[in-house]
């Protein structure tokens, strides 16, 4: 009943440092704001430390309105990690591309806060608030380069479409509330288990799928993502692609496996079909793309499809697969986008054609791009392969066709990844001037690459972690 602050530590800490950076941003004169990023970084690392320290500190507070279990912890760590990487990797980009960025870092932190809240939300209201905080902040971030028409347009699109989808999600929630008579996810589970089963519940489910499908950009609710990804500032894009997707997946899993697991026969088929559609359309449409951000956007649609496979298997193994994949997806995606940011920072272009000869201009960036893309494609010995293995292993017996489709599609995806690699490795650069990454970016790149390779070769620890988390999820 009472608030248990020890459980809230991470959120509070994040709130604190967020506020700190915010205030500092307001007070410090604009010419001496360089240090802001480092402060934000320190803060985030601190919060991450706090979160990790609370790994085994589980509990439920406010009679189930706020759930802090390892499952939530895992996703919080994920979001914080990606926030750290994004911030660290985009110092230079932010300095040069984002005018008066004093709010940039604080907004990123508040976004993360929203994610953390929605991840461990135990009732619809908290869930909604966290989601909305995340969304609103992302709208701001997407429109952050407000001197750029594209950025503004991205903000506009995200705002309107997200608002719409949130309305749909809310409608679904209201129907669920109506049919089950509670807004506590835990109670919803017990009510549904008790046999509450009304036609409107189905409509509610469908609307939930739509609303959350929008956030994880699953076909056919994905259409915003390429445009927004392209228009938003690149670090924001990577954050959007990784963290918001992961958080939404956390909610997705919590709602559907946690609450509606008993009536899975109503929605598993639906999710399977959506997953298949996402894989197919995401991968096929990525093929003809010429802008690397759009290409990555479509590929992230496909990735969402893969992750949904873990949802299809309503099981601990499935949840574990989702978590594992979401985590390795962080490194691959952020690695790729950081390279994109660094390149566009120098060349001012996101066209694939302008990556010619990157291997000679910036060997590190080129190899990170290679590793990241191949990991997304699931080529061993990179992390993506293990992740896919975990995911597909869970559905191979009930939905063999899905496994087939997924693997074939991931091999087809290699096609467009290789087109990038072709340009990077074969062509001679138009201007051979080396691309200066800057120390922070370089370190970030190295971290992502090492992580991607390491998770592929020795996934043991992470999978253990995901195991514990998944078990904690199913205990209740």
């Amino acid at each position, binding site marked *: 009943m009472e608030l248990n602050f020890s459980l809230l530590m991470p959120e509070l800490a994040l709130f604190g440092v967020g506020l700190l950076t915010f205030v500092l941003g307001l007070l410090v004169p604009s010419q001496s704001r360089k240090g802001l990023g480092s402060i934000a970084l320190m803060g985030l690392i601190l919060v991450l430390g706090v979160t990790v320290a609370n790994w085994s500190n589980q509990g439920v507070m406010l009679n189930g309105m706020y759930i802090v279990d390892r499952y939530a912890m895992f996703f919080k760590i994920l979001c914080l990690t990606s926030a750290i990487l994004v911030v660290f990797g985009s110092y230079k980009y932010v300095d040069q591309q984002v005018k008066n960025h004093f709010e940039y870092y604080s907004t990123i932190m508040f976004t993360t806060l929203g994610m953390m809240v929605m991840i461990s939300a135990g009732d619809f209201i908290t869930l909604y608030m966290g989601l909305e905080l995340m969304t609103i902040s992302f709208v701001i971030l997407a429109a952050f380069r407000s001197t750029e028409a594209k950025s503004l347009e991205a903000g506009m699109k995200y705002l309107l479409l997200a608002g719409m989808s949130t309305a749909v999600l809310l409608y679904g929630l209201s129907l669920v509330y109506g049919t089950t008579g509670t807004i506590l996810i835990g109670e919803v589970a017990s009510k549904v288990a008790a046999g509450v089963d009304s036609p409107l519940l189905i409509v509610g489910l469908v609307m939930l799928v739509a609303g959350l499908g929008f956030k994880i950009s699953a076909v056919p609710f994905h259409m915003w993502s390429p445009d927004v990804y392209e228009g938003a500032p690149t670090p924001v894009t990577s954050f959007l692609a990784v963290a918001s997707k992961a958080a939404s997946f956390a909610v997705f899993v919590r709602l559907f496996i946690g609450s509606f697991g008993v009536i899975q026969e109503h929605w598993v088929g639906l999710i399977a079909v959506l997953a298949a559609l996402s894989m197919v359309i995401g991968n096929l449409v990525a093929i003809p793309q010429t802008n690397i951000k759009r290409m990555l956007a479509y590929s992230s649609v496909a990735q969402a499809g893969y992750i949904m496979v873990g949802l299809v298997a309503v099981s601990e193994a499935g949840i574990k697969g989702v978590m594992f994949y979401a985590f390795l997806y962080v490194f691959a995606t952020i690695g790729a986008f950081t390279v994109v940011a660094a390149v566009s920072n120098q060349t001012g272009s996101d066209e694939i054609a302008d990556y010619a000869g990157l291997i000679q201009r910036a060997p590190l960036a080129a190899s990170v791009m290679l590793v990241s893309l191949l990991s997304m494609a699931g*080529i061993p*010995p990179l992390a993506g392969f293990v992740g896919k*293995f975990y995911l*597909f*292993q869970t559905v*191979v017996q009930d939905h*063999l066709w899905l496994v*087939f489709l997924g693997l074939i599609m991931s091999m087809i995806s290699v096609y467009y990844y290789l087109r990038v*690699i072709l340009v990077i490795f*074969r062509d001679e650069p138009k201007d051979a001037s080396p691309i200066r990454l800057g120390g922070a970016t370089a370190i970030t790149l190295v971290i992502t690459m090492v992580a991607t390779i390491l998770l592929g070769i020795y996934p043991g620890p992470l999978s253990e972690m995901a195991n514990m988390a998944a078990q904690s999820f199913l205990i209740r």
Partner: protein
Amino acid sequence: MNIPVLTLTLLSPILAAFVIMFIPKEEDKLCKWVAAAGTGTALLLSLYVYFGYDQSVGGLQWVDFGGPVPWIRDLGVSWYMAVDGLSLPMLLLTNLIGFTAVFASWNITLRAKELMIYLLVLIAGVMGTFIAQDLFIFLLFYEVVVIPIYIMVIIWGSSKRVTKEYAGMKLTIYLLIGSAFLLVGVIAIFVQALQITGVPNMSFEALSRVAFPEQFQIYMFALLLIGFGSLLSMWPFHSWSPDGYAGAPTAVSMIHAGVLKKIGGYGLIRFAVFVLPLGAKFWAPYIAVLGVIGVAYAAMGALAQKDLKYVVGYSSVSHMGYVLLGVATLGVVGVNGAVANMFAHGVMAALFFSMIGFIYEKTHTRWIPDLGGISHYAPRLSVGFMMAAMASLGLPGLVSFIPEFTIFVESFKVYGILAVLAIAGIIITALYVLRAGANTLFGPAREEYKDIKDIRGPELVPLVVLGGVLVIGGILPSLLFDMVNSGVAPILAHINEALQLGGR
């Protein structure tokens, strides 16, 4: 045996690659020497292992770290590096070809540093598949090789009938999609085994001890067959092979035709047949038919070629047909023949491609009608070429005859008239090989080639090493066969046992 020799063998090319990374790219000679050192070490180690292997004992030996090292617990994956009579010839072959491939690309100066790095990674990857006794590790290495190959093709490849970009992409995607089927099978088998035994374990032995239901075995074997078959360029999944080899640079052609393909055959025996005997039993006749079609079809295809690399490309498809036929017999003699034939063809194809590579380097063409009379200017080159040619038409006294003969013995016993068709392949083979050889090397000396240099210095290494293996293996087949037999016999014993169990 507390030194992990195999792991060291695996690491030595990788270490060399690391060293090269820190060499300035101007020092390309140095890069090449380092690469040669790395592969050479691997070769020596594998020779040491090969002759240190106790055939009388048989089974898995040289087990690293004294046994499986748990790697990914919840998938039952373990770092399990060991060799038996089946994998040893392949390991040796890999390092033979890897070592010579470095010298075959000796004259390449364009971005030589990168080339060597990719080459070494490639070699290490191929090696890993042969020494890994764990399915998962096997898979890791199985696909790691694809990407370096792609990069090498697009950078150092050559465009003829098809552009090198097309060739590389086709090669990669084709094999990857094949491997997708394979992966589905692997995942399904793993899950099924987990359900039956309750403990996850991915080592080949453990899987082979699981009694899978027959229907399941049949379906899964089909998947694995498509996967491995497309890598083995089994008809009709072969069409990547000629284009790919034509587009690829010499080193890649050597390694790809020499060993990479063999991973398909190796996997087919080591994994598909070994783990799913009933499935193998069911599919064997179809495999045989496909193999025979491959033999005749590809041989005829090679007959119609004017580009040397296409000739060899098709011929390799045709030879793999023999391998399939041998595997399909599911008999000791036949499978022995198949494995030995993989070794033989590996050496032969590598020599062939390296020689063609030199010809291309020196004359800047592979178009047979434009060639001729090379032997007057480059006798050593011609000797190498003719040796490869003779080996590929199965001339006795060279390594490839006895394997083919053993395959014929068993397959003729098992499949009768079908085998006769395959045997007829030797005539067509002789026809196209002789044609290509004669029209390239002999005939009146041509003016335009009068100042080409014969191969010399490091360029001779492929000829000496591979040619030597060709002859030695031909004169003393027991060196190869006793080893292969010590590996194949137990596997087939296990299979027959399983078949009897499945039969009741």
